[in-house]
């Protein structure tokens, strides 16, 4: 079976996500508009109205209800999909724990946007990273094509019997959601064959087989439920890699836990995720031209966190520079915390720096990354482990 290339279309990241959901033949789509996500739901409504997608759109009155409807529909046996951003995602917060605790494999697109106050409709990945403990798998797309591919992969991963967890596919607002790119849209029949039908064996509202979904367990079973979710996350690592390989064999692209770029001999490894990786790759090339052996690891999955892959790509390096388009106030960037905890028990691990940058959509260019990598690796004595780039008022 050879690679089947699809039609090429000019699509924004948001439309690419909507095409992904259409290809996955989602069945119930509850959604509430929020910039920069809105076009995903608008496009899906268009598909449904034109008869190109057999699904129910539920125009809910809030994101909280969007996630409740998605949970209930998935528990009734329908493949569910919704999308949100920033405050909308925060409004879903409690229900994300419900979805993962009930082991419902629904998929949620998150178009990253700054969390108010103050308001920025441009990206800051803190909105989805603040949900990292919710038990949802998290993917971060680097471009529109990957956003589409990851939606299809997400359903396969979510519905795998060894996983059964909800998945968030995150893409940065405007930088990806509103940027028009050439996107290859797989053939519907091929996509259907890849994703398959959703059949719920574990959680199903069926009068023929009555079960009570969402019960009280207290200290008797709570820990075991959480432990099983942890095991599902562990299994997800293997499943994500397997699904990425299958996707690659069928469609010519595949997105696993990480993407590594020139890390084999790298002395300096940049770690980041999402759209920043594009300019970071250019910076790696320029740094290499200047004789600095740089490389890049891009996280595709943040949950489960690809610890082994991070160790594999970073253990031989002298320096790791994490680029965080997010911040955990009172601590550091969130990726930095994970990378540090992955590398902290190595006997002779690299020095790890964190740079917080690009918040609320502040533009970061290849030259910015080049400059800060040179500064951090120049062994300037007063350099801090955690710093902010391109910020006014910094000492």
């Amino acid at each position, binding site marked *: 079976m050879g690679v089947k290339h699809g039609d090429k279309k000019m699509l924004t990241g948001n439309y690419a996500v909507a095409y992904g959901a259409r290809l996955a033949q989602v069945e*119930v789509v509850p959604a509430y508009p929020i910039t920069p996500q809105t076009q995903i739901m608008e496009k899906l409504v268009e598909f449904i109205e034109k008869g190109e997608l057999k699904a129910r759109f539920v125009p809910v009155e809030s994101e909280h*209800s969007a996630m409740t409807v998605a*949970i209930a529909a998935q*528990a009734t046996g*329908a493949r569910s999909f919704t999308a949100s951003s920033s405050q909308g995602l925060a409004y879903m917060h409690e*229900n994300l724990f419900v979805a993962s605790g009930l082991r419902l494999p629904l998929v949620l697109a998150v178009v990253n946007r700054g969390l108010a106050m103050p308001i920025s409709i441009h990206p800051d990945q803190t909105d989805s990273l603040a949900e990292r403990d919710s038990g949802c798998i998290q993917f971060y797309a680097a471009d529109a094509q990957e956003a589409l591919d990851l939606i299809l992969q997400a359903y396969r991963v979510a519905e795998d019997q060894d996983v059964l967890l909800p998945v968030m596919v995150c893409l940065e607002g405007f930088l990806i959601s509103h940027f028009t790119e050439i996107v290859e849209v797989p053939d519907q029949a091929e996509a259907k064959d890849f994703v398959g039908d959703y059949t719920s064996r574990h959680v*199903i*509202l069926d009068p023929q087989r009555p079960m*009570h979904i969402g019960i009280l367990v207290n200290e008797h079973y709570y820990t075991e439920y959480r432990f099983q979710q942890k095991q599902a996350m562990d299994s997800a690592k293997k499943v994500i890699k397997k699904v990425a390989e299958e996707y690659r064999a069928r469609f010519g692209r595949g997105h696993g836990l990480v993407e590594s770029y020139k890390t084999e001999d790298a002395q300096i490894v940049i770690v980041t995720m999402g759209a920043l990786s594009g300019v970071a790759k250019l910076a790696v090339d320029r740094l290499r031209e200047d004789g600095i052996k740089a490389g890049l690891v891009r996280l595709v999955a943040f949950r489960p966190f690809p610890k082994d892959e991070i160790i594999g790509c970073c253990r031989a390096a002298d320096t790791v520079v994490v680029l965080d388009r997010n911040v955990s106030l009172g601590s550091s960037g969130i990726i930095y915390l994970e990378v540090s905890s992955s590398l902290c028990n190595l006997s002779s691990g690299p020095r790890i720096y964190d740079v917080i940058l690009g918040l609320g959509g502040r533009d970061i260019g290849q030259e910015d990354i080049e400059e800060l990598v040179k500064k951090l690796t120049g062994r300037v004595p007063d350099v801090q482990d955690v710093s902010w780039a391109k910020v006014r008022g910094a000492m």
Partner: protein
Amino acid sequence: MEKDKTFIRPGNFFCPGCPAGIIWKLILKVLGPNCIASIGSTCVGMPAILYPSPLDIPTLHVGMPGPAAALSGISAALEILAEKGKRPARGNINVFAIAGDGGTADIGMAALSGAAERNDNGIYFCFDNEAYMNTGIQRSSLTPRKSWTTTTPVGKFQTKKDLPTIMAAHRIPYVATASLGFPNDFIAKIKKARDLKKGFRYIHILAPCPIGWGFPSEKTVEVSRLAVETGVWPLYEIESGVMRQAQRKTARKPVSQYFRIQKRFAHLTDDEIDAVEAVLRKTETPE
């Protein structure tokens, strides 16, 4: 279906005298066993939430604000799955939600109004015990004026929200009030809601709580009847915008009979009760 088969088995976690057991029995007598229920985080939801369960129907409990939206999700899924030939047509399965006054009128109000405005398919039962009883008797927007609760220690200052008429203002096909003191009326209303088949149907049941209201646990049905007989809880239905009130066969009883049987109104003076009596007399429909 066996004639006397009930779909709530003996043995449950309700307090002595709680009306929830009777209400479940009546609802399931009409709607069970081919139904799916969305459950609020509430006293009345306990048989679905606590293991082992006495219920023989599938239930979903999403959380405090969730019951109406979960009903929407279940119905949407059944409809599309039937359309795709994956599940039997939803006409066969009765979808309903049941939640308390908090999950309905307060934290769940946005979801309730949304589901009603969309006219999503299902029956919604509000189990109104007039306070947050599951957390230990705190006021809700459906607690009546002057009632004692732990968060209204000198009596509630505000008036009870008139939720059934708010629901009727959504122009949904069916709204009704009910009381377990009048089970045949309640059963008839559930049947009517069921047989309408489509759209959002709302039934609001007054649910006297022996612990929260302060009356002996054997008097639940009596208090339920008194609420109706004194005119405090009128029984009516609004079908396609047309209101029909149950006709009283006997003279209205003095409202003091309802107030004086409950400790939550123990601080009311005779004058205060007389004032309520006067209001009810004024609004009474002439014979």
